[in-house]
């Protein structure tokens, strides 16, 4: 029976024995609840002038923590010959059988505290669905090793920090790369905005001693001093934002490594919180080469992928999709695409431009759009705003011109590619076997110009910030493209 097979592999194995979460899970549950429930409530209680909802969140702390403790106490899992069985729940009892064959990857997440205790958060992801099949918060490193050894007996890997040395490293980011990435990403602004948002929510921006002091000093200054101060402040603030951004990047993407192990691509990174995520090659639906102006200054691009099937956990999802290959040298990008998913290679394809009238239409649209903004600004806000907006019209025209010139589509050996953009450029590719739905759209304006646009829908779209939506094609070309895509998609079998 099953026990025999288990006994063959490891005599000391805990095959068939039910195991529980690591005891420190209790600590982490409590810690998580403190973070989400108690701290906001405390902040409000201490700083807020008026009444606020979040105070009442604190009340929830006790029941939620109680549930967390109960959950910890009831989660049990054991290994069968070819499946893992997870039990949980006290009132609603749940037993879940997950065949090893269905498990696509085991992803880990470790923050500082996890590392202190030698544990990590584990997620088992399967082929389909939007929720992970099983989540364990937390398991010891040894337990994770055992799980990996059982679920994926053919590939061995120890803990989060050690990726198989023999595996080819596709991308590695050093400190200099991270600094450049920090500059490109410009997270500083977003972080400051977030902090300001929180401060506003908790009424921290109201009259405080600090703000009154600032007001007093500012009103004392002469106009000239004020001007000097403003001029000085700008580079200082900019520098601070850059430092913030670089720090964030270093913390999040420290020791970034992208490795190919058999059919999987593995990403690991993080300084305080270590993340190890797996992306099975065949789950990649869509690939985008993303390039902003700042990217171009440094001769780099970034690679994003979209995958389907798997959970929506922010940390791992972002790392393995949006930040899949955050910084690649321009001339190495195409090669990386080939390494990541050889069938999506976009070198040497025959780029087809948009219709002849596309440029005229795009320019016209930019002019109309900006004119509307100018008028609206002038009427609603002030004539100066309108004037400022009007000055941007030539820029809009230039942008449309560039976009029209760069935009193109092409057949690849196994799929289709599309590129677009004026200053921020994106080049994307997908495979016939990943194409879900093909649609041709025709706006009334399209009709007048005898044009149409073609859209290819794929699974899990979004993270790449781009889609194969080819606009301003000649009607006949669009029809043919749609027809051809429909045929080739149907012929290519879809596999999650």
């Amino acid at each position: 029976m099953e026990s025999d097979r288990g006994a063959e592999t490891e005599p000391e194995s805990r095959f068939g024995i039910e195991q529980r979460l690591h005891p420190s899970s209790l600590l982490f549950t409590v810690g998580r609840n403190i973070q989400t429930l108690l701290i906001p409530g405390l902040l409000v209680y201490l700083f807020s002038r008026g009444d606020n909802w979040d105070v009442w969140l604190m009340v929830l702390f006790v029941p939620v923590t109680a549930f967390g403790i109960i959950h910890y106490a009831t989660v049990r899992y054991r290994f069968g010959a070819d499946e893992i069985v997870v039990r949980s729940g006290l009132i609603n009892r749940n037993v879940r059988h997950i065949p090893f064959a269905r498990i696509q990857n085991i992803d880990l997440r470790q923050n500082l505290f996890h590392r202190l205790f030698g544990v990590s958060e584990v997620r088992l992801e399967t082929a389909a669905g939007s929720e992970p099949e099983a989540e364990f918060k937390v398991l010891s490193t040894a337990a994770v090793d055992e799980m990996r050894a059982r679920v994926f007996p053919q590939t061995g890997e120890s803990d989060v920090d050690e990726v198989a040395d023999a595996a080819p490293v596709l991308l590695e980011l050093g400190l200099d790369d991270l600094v450049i990435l920090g500059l490109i990403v410009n997270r500083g602004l977003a972080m400051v905005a977030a902090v300001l948002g929180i401060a506003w929510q908790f009424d921290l921006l109201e009259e405080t001693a600090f703000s009154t002091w600032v007001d007093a000093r500012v009103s004392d200054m002469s106009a000239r001093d004020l001007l000097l101060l403003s001029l000085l402040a700008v580079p200082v603030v900019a520098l601070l934002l850059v430092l913030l951004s670089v720090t964030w990047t270093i913390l999040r993407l420290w020791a970034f490594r992208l490795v190919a192990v058999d059919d999987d691509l593995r990403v690991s990174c993080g300084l305080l919180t270590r993340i190890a995520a797996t992306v099975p090659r065949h789950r990649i639906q869509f690939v985008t080469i993303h390039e902003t102006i700042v990217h171009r200054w440094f001769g780099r691009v970034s690679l994003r992928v979209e995958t389907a099937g798997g959970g929506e956990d922010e940390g791992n999802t972002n790392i393995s999709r949006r930040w899949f290959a955050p910084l690649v040298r321009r001339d190495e990008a195409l090669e990386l695409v080939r390494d990541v998913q050889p069938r999506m290679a976009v070198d040497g394809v025959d780029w087809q431009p948009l219709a002849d009238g596309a440029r005229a239409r795009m320019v016209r649209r930019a002019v109309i759009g900006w004119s509307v903004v100018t008028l609206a600004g002038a009427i609603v806000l002030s004539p100066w705003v309108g004037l400022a907006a009007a000055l941007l019209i030539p820029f809009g025209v230039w942008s449309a011109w560039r976009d029209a010139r760069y935009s193109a589509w092409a057949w690849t050996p196994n799929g289709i590619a599309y590129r677009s953009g004026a200053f921020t450029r994106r080049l994307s590719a997908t495979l016939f076997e990943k194409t879900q739905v093909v649609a041709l759209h025709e706006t009334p304006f399209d009709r007048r110009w005898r044009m149409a646009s073609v859209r290819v829908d794929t699974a899990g779209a979004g993270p790449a910030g781009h889609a194969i939506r080819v606009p301003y094609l000649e009607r006949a070309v669009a029809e043919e493209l749609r027809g051809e895509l429909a045929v080739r998609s149907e012929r290519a079998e879809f596999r999650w």
Partner: protein
Amino acid sequence: MAEHESGLAIDGAADEDAAVDVADGAVRGLDPGFVPAEQIGSWIFVAVVVVLATGGLIVAAKAEWIPSFWMPWAIAAAAAVVLLLCWTAAFWPRIEYRHTSYLVSELGLEIRKGVVWRSRVNVPRSRIQHTDVSQGPIQRRYGIATLVVHTAGTESSQVEISGLPLDRAHAIRDFLINWGDGDGV
């Protein structure tokens, strides 16, 4: 041709003839019953809007939210909107009917929709995860149904067409689902 009737079995298992017959690649329009069904639905909507608008205007008049100087204009505006809705309810279904068509073939389902903003959507047969055939009460009276096809796509995760004759909707569904050996996974 009597074989077609057996394709209506509740469990949805169609026989070969009905299934193959449905996937002939011919472009078809909706069932004519679509027009009255849509009209009735629209008229009901218009009735609800009229009641709400009247109630709202009366309340606004009584509570002085709208100064009495503006009242005639408010009433005129409301009347204009209602008239527009009436025109839509009366004429739009027919216009929609003329501009909607579909075809089913070995390759899958193709739906052509849209009066002003037009589209042609192709759903390859092998990409269909599951299907729904549903009928509202008005649709039931006219023997038409809505077919919704689910895919793994993001923007087009659901592709639907309303106004198919019920038996045809079933036949198309059966044909699309029984495409091969698996579930696309």
